């Protein structure tokens, strides 16, 4: 079985973001970028399935600027076999990305597609579900456990109030939640080897997909800052403040 895994280049999760002075967007110039954390979990899960003998090939795909090839090389270093880069400098909305991934699914016929549940830049949480709808494949979102069993996959999902396990026919789309696995670090020899692994470069036009969206970004601003309060010296003082000043007890 082939596994397709999608990765996104995003701002590093440790970086404190700045809004541009003209409020047009977040300022990403000279900012450390990295693979979206949920995509790292997706790559790890795909590689583990290959190590277990469930998968035979892991193909990583990314939609984004030329620099997104860094994240694809990371995926290759972590154990993916080859990569597809769909290069675009336009703002890649979830729907357009899902349409591109659907075309790749048509070409590659993977048994399983694994994506992160959300990217930590736009916080959309849409692409996997949209891909499932466009390809008419079942979806197991927010996965904390994935077990391939013959022509089915059981996915345990993190839902409000607990866990839900569902069975999906294969091929299927899975999106990862935090507890699915702990991604490994790439070792230096693997990073070297990854440089020689195949990467094909395409454009949205190659797939006949229009990147433009009907959603326009009018303004990006900083949230209202919360001011820090005071330090209290004791539990008694805390309770007194909560009762008499904040009036929440």
């Amino acid at each position: 079985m082939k596994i397709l895994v999608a990765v996104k280049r995003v701002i590093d999760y440790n970086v404190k973001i700045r809004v541009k002075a003209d409020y047009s967007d977040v300022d990403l110039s000279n900012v450390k970028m990295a693979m979206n954390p949920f995509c790292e979990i997706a790559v790890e899960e795909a590689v583990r399935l290959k190590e277990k003998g469930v998968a035979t090939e892991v193909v990583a795909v990314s939609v984004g600027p030329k620099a997104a090839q860094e994240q694809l090389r990371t995926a290759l270093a972590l154990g993916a076999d080859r990569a597809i880069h769909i290069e675009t400098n336009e703002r890649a909305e979830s729907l357009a990305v899902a349409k591109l991934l659907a075309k790749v699914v048509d070409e590659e016929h993977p048994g399983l597609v694994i994506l992160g549940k959300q990217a930590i830049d736009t916080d959309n949480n849409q692409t996997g579900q949209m891909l499932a709808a466009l390809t008419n494949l079942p979806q197991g979102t927010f996965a904390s456990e994935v077990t391939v069993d013959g022509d089915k996959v059981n996915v345990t999902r993190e839902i409000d109030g607990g866990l839900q396990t569902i069975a999906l026919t294969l091929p299927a789309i899975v999106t990862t939640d935090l507890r699915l696995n702990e991604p490994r670090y790439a070792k230096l020899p693997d990073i070297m080897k990854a440089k020689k692994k195949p990467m094909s470069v395409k454009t949205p036009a190659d797939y006949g997909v229009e990147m433009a969206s009907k959603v326009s970004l009018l303004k990006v601003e900083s949230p209202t800052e919360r001011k820090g309060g005071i330090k209290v010296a004791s539990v008694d003082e805390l309770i007194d403040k909560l009762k008499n000043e904040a009036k929440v007890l």
Partner: protein
Amino acid sequence: MSILVLADLHEDQLTGATAHVVAAAQLIQNNTGGNIDVLVAGEGIQAAAEAAAKLDGVTKVRLADNAVYANQLAEPLGALLVELANDYTHVLASTTTTGKNVLPRLAALKDVSQLSDIIAVDSADTFKRPIYAGNAIATVKSGDALKVITVRSTGFEAVGANGSASVETVDTVVGNRQSSFVKAELAQSDRPELSAAKVVISGGRGMGSGENFKLLNGIADKLGAAIGASRAAVDAGFVPNDMQVGQTGKIVAPDLYIAVGISGAIQHLAGMKDSKVIVAVNKDDEAPIFQVADYGLVGDLFEILPELELRL
């Protein structure tokens, strides 16, 4: 120009989130006029439909009660929404795990974008939503004919429950051969639900172990509080993920939020910084959590928690 709200259900009952989504729908309706209908889909969900019919501002409840909709599986719910959406200009759901699971399917099948997790309605087509873990707020305008939107509960005050909308049965039944329910393991708790609680007390990595989370129980009992956790505490395996407050967990905005042994990473702050009053207990007086806390108490949580429980 009508609005459809997908009701959020938990164990076949209406959750509190839906009243917040109807509030957001009313703000859109102020611009567009038209009706606000609520779709309640599932199996054996008459009670949820009746609860939805009481929500203020609802014109009618559309009840799709069939085994295929049981357990809120994404494929049949998405297909049902696609069938019904033609009657509406806006389809809204809460940013709960069901809303997040189902709504993007509708958007994709209608070839429109989705606006996720809105916190404000500027007009019928322009909304505010947090991006980058709430460290920026984007104002976005949708030119799509159908607006597909998920709504963050804490952005909108819940509507009351004094209404009496009609309940109309939806006969549409879709097929589903792709996904099936295996089992659910739901936490049984007498405590209020995390995202609806007036008081939340959360523990972080500083709690040291899952066992030590019991130190929060007595205080939560006395305050009628829900218990939450930081991602660090979840990652460390102390507590289950459904207790996580933060960018990738629950977003809460209670009257009182007590953060214990939580340093205050931006991903955690994203989930609680709209709380009315924030209390932080941490042994590190430089912890970033103190920059957002109204009241900070520096010290050993293992001494402070028992004392707090005693004095409340």
